[in-house]
């Protein structure tokens, strides 16, 4: 049986009508069969198809369906439960509400609390049991640096025994901070880490490496030059993007107040 092309069908004059939808369906079918060619194919592709790389697609999908491990260490865990589980904060907005009870099914682990030296091997084993790709968020001061527990019993920073992707400061961090860190992790997974708060608050040039010599006394030429370069970079990026541009979120929302 010979298949018939859709050349004779009416053009897409009335968007939203049932006929319009039917025609698009049939054209999609013809695209899959290989019946569309030349200008029809180009037109259909321009209307319907978005091209990207597989890595980006995979990163986009993975970062929006993250499964956290059901795991809590100390008081930060209470805050984490409030962030993940409660409808007020609702981590389901970011696709990370499905807590997995097994590390084999989890994508990332939130170290919520101080890690004692007796717990460290357990945490490490859980992390090792997770399947690649896997990520780890260190939530709060204690798991990032030992926090106030500078003593015999607590590991001074969880990155002494396992890789950590995101460190979230706070004691405990607010749920917003946890979500901000999680969004950072999502962006890192998508392969486009942004410049963070320095860019947002126009604070480029305030990095601590630029201030090393100021602490010791006079600023050195190297740090002055680094500071000048950073200010120049801010100025050019503000010019090139304009007030509504994507690179200038400082100006974003100026009209809403």
């Amino acid at each position, binding site marked *: 049986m010979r298949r018939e092309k859709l050349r004779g069908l009416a053009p897409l004059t009335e968007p939203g009508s049932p006929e319009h939808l039917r025609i698009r369906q049939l054209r999609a079918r013809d695209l899959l069969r290989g019946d569309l060619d030349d200008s029809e194919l180009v037109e259909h592709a321009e209307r319907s198809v978005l091209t990207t790389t597989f890595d980006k697609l995979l990163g986009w999908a993975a970062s929006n369906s993250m499964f956290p491990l059901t795991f809590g260490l100390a008081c930060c865990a209470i805050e984490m439960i409030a962030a993940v589980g409660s409808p007020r904060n609702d981590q389901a907005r970011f696709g990370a509400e499905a807590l997995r009870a097994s590390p084999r099914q989890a994508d990332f682990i939130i170290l919520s609390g101080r890690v004692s030296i007796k717990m460290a091997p357990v945490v490490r084993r859980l992390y090792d049991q997770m399947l690649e790709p896997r990520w780890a968020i260190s939530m709060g001061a204690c798991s990032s640096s*030992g926090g106030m527990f*500078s003593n015999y019993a607590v590991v001074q920073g969880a990155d002494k025994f396992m890789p950590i992707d995101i460190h979230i400061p706070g004691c405990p961090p607010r749920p917003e901070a946890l979500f901000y860190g999680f969004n950072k992790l999502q962006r890192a997974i998508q392969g486009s880490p942004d410049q963070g708060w320095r860019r947002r608050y126009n604070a480029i040039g305030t990095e*601590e490496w630029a201030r090393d010599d100021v*602490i010791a006394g006079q600023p050195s030429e190297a740090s002055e030059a680094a500071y000048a370069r950073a200010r120049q970079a801010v100025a050019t990026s503000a010019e090139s993007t304009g007030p509504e541009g994507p690179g200038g979120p400082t100006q974003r929302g100026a009209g809403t107040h």
Partner: protein
Amino acid sequence: MPDAPGLELIAGELRDAHPNSVPGTYHEHGQACLIVDPEQILAVLTWLRDTPGQEYRFLSSVHGVDYLPATPRFGVHYELLNRDRMERIRVRAALADPGGDELPELDSCVGLFPTADFQEREVYDFFGIVFRGHPDLRRILMPEVYVGWPLRRDFPIGGEPVIFTHNEHQVPGWSQ
């Protein structure tokens, strides 16, 4: 809670029953305490538990103390309770530090009070006080491979120096 004269009466009866067992007492903040010769700690605890009129049958806590630089250096406190009269009495075994790598030793009272099992393990874990005759003297809270007695006063606090911007230049290799 025995008052100060009552405490002296108990101490006197103990000295009659076991000579030189109670070198001293003190009564502070309404709490009565017998300071006891560590060699006779079992005899004293048995007497306090079984003597009619005393009957402190409940051991509510065992804990260790490090009194460095005082001598004798260590103390093991037994908090006894009579639940009929709601009276508490504290027994302190004052232990000298044997020095070097030697650990101070004391008789275990697990035979008298089974609840002392875990608590004596905890005292051993943190102060390195060995309880003779304990059925299973291992570390209980710290990892079993841990070295040292972390709640002794001469144990280093541990941790790491916290680096702020005001002292980061004092930490070599930090900012470069």
